[in-house]
């Protein structure tokens, strides 16, 4: 499956400044593994302990993968995979662990 990956500014130094990448893979994890082969270092920016970082949102089309099958979420040809940082206001939440 060939999908378009939208890269946030913060990760573009790792992708030779490319905003969009065309990557193949049957799942989100596979796409990330394939990106890692081409752009070493990107995987650790997205994944920790087998899960996406809590401050990173990954969407397949409009769906947050945490509410589908996480990194195992399957992909179809032409899907769009968007990586976005989370956002909030206020002080740091009491529930956030150090």
């Amino acid at each position: 499956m060939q999908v378009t990956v939208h890269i946030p500014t913060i990760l573009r130094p790792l992708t030779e400044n490319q905003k969009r990448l065309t990557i193949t893979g049957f799942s989100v994890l596979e796409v990330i593994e394939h990106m890692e082969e081409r752009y070493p270092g990107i995987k650790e920016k997205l994944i920790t302990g087998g899960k996406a970082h809590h401050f990173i949102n990954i969407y397949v089309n409009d769906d947050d993968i945490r509410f589908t099958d996480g990194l195992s979420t399957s992909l179809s040809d032409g899907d769009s995979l968007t990586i976005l940082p989370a956002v909030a206001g206020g002080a740091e939440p009491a529930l956030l662990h150090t």
Partner: protein
Amino acid sequence: MNRPLASCAITGPLKSAAPDYAAIVSSLLYQSGALGMKIDATENCSNNAALSFEFKTPHTTPITCNVTRWGDSSKQASVTENIMQAACGLMSVHGRASGKSQPLGLNYVSTLTAALALQGGVSASIGQLRGLSVSNSNVSMASAALLSMGQYIAGATTSESHESSGPRHVPHPACLPFISLDGVLFELETLDAGPWQKFWSEIGVSSAVAGKGWTAFLLRYAKAISPLPDELFSAISNITYHRISQICARTGMAICPVRSINDRAQDEDSRHVWLQGPWEFLFETRLKDGRSSPSTDNLPLSGLTVIESCRRIQGPLAGHLLALLGAEVIRIEPPGGDPLRSMPPIAGDCSARFDALNRFKTIREVDIKSLAGQAEVKELVQRADVFLHNWAPGKAVLLNLDHEDLAATNPSLIYAYAGGWATDSTAHSPSSQMPGTDFMAQAYSGIAKKIAETSGTHGGSLFTILDVLGGVVAAQGITIALLNRCMNNMSAKVTSSLMSAATLLCADDFQSLYELPGSGSASKSIIDTIYATKQGKIAVECRDLKTAVRLAEALGAAIVIEEDNFQDCLSDWFLSRTADEWAGILEHAGVPSAVVIEDLADLQTMAHLQPTLTPGAYTKVNSPWSFK
């Protein structure tokens, strides 16, 4: 209770200020009183163009603090709180969630203006003590209002992704807060998808729908809209508040009912917070000298160094304000940089919203969780004047970067905490399980309910009002502590919070409740309405009958204000011209009015706001202060 400015005073015609400035004066007097200042209020002289007062310390010549309506001094049009909210886009952002521009129902711009005006006087005094020749500090209501819009204006004016989500674009039937089966209004909060997912699963909502809701839920901080799927509202409305609370406890979701200011006033700490003012000062170390290092530039805090370890809005805005006053702000970010740098829309190579709050700072990437990182922070702090953080309660102790730790490193340090709740102690939080975010603080403090009563909605604003005011209060507290250090050779810890900012915003309400029961609120205007016109909308406010008569004359309308249907008649009359045309006519007639800004990108085209804005990759809001 520590009163850091007990040796200082404000003097000026504050007894009967022009109506435009009355709410500013009220907040100014409250803040000055809380700081222990002597207040010498005289009768108003005839000058209604500006509000002027003097800020005095025993060690400086008086600073004249001028407050004007607009940044452009040639524009003298009379204003009110609501007219300013209309003219500077606050009504638009607040109205996005409900689908129509409307006022907040709070003296928000006035409170911000008062805080900035007082901070101008304090900062200029620090400048004098550090060798700067300065005797005047100027702010305008418009610059205060636009400061609160900085992030939203940034989001609306980048070329990459033009955000024109004015109220007209997003009418959504189901709005926050949620309502339970037994009629309790409440906010939910989590900054992690896990609790959200578990919570809605227990409520019986599918993961796919919960996921769509999560995306919308996160959006509300940046865009002031939250188009949650209707399924969430309908599912939760079948369950009692008690059961929802139990599900929250099981799933890690935070919940807070929408309380009234009366409820808040009954809280154990409430009266103390109101009497103390929005800052808590702890003075401990007497220094040999107050480190009044000389000013290195023409701004009052130039040559001073601030170390900031903050995320999101409140803390970074406080650091931004100190940078605008001339301080060198070194911002600590996690290795790899703050993830919010890439929050769209992007201007150049950085999130426009992020840049709006952080563009004047130097960045140091430090892993504060590691011992090496903590040592690096301490090394930075050794040479700094201020350390500012907004970590979760209890985290500073865990990181070995609490007040005691850093005071040992640098005894003259001003240690500042800009939190969500009134304290950084987990034991004394109103609820240590509630994240200290804007919308939770609005619900808990009574602000949300007050807004709802005015806006005809159920809850607070998705415009992050407390984050912004909290940021201003934090910067103000730091500046006050710096002045106290210069004058009295004392270092300090200063704590402020979203909750204390909420108390400041409703100080008059608390006064009514605690000291003058039954005094009621200020008198209502005869006309305070947004009218549709041939093109655009216009906000009009007539505080008294005389102004209403002038309005009728200006409209050329044979309207008898005393008759019941005069509002309907006015609505028809306004349809005959454009909002721009009416604004010119009403300004000439001396009727407070303004074209309602619906698309924030329009702000940069308004001539009278030009001095306050700088165009570029996105439109930047300039410093609210100018010093002479």
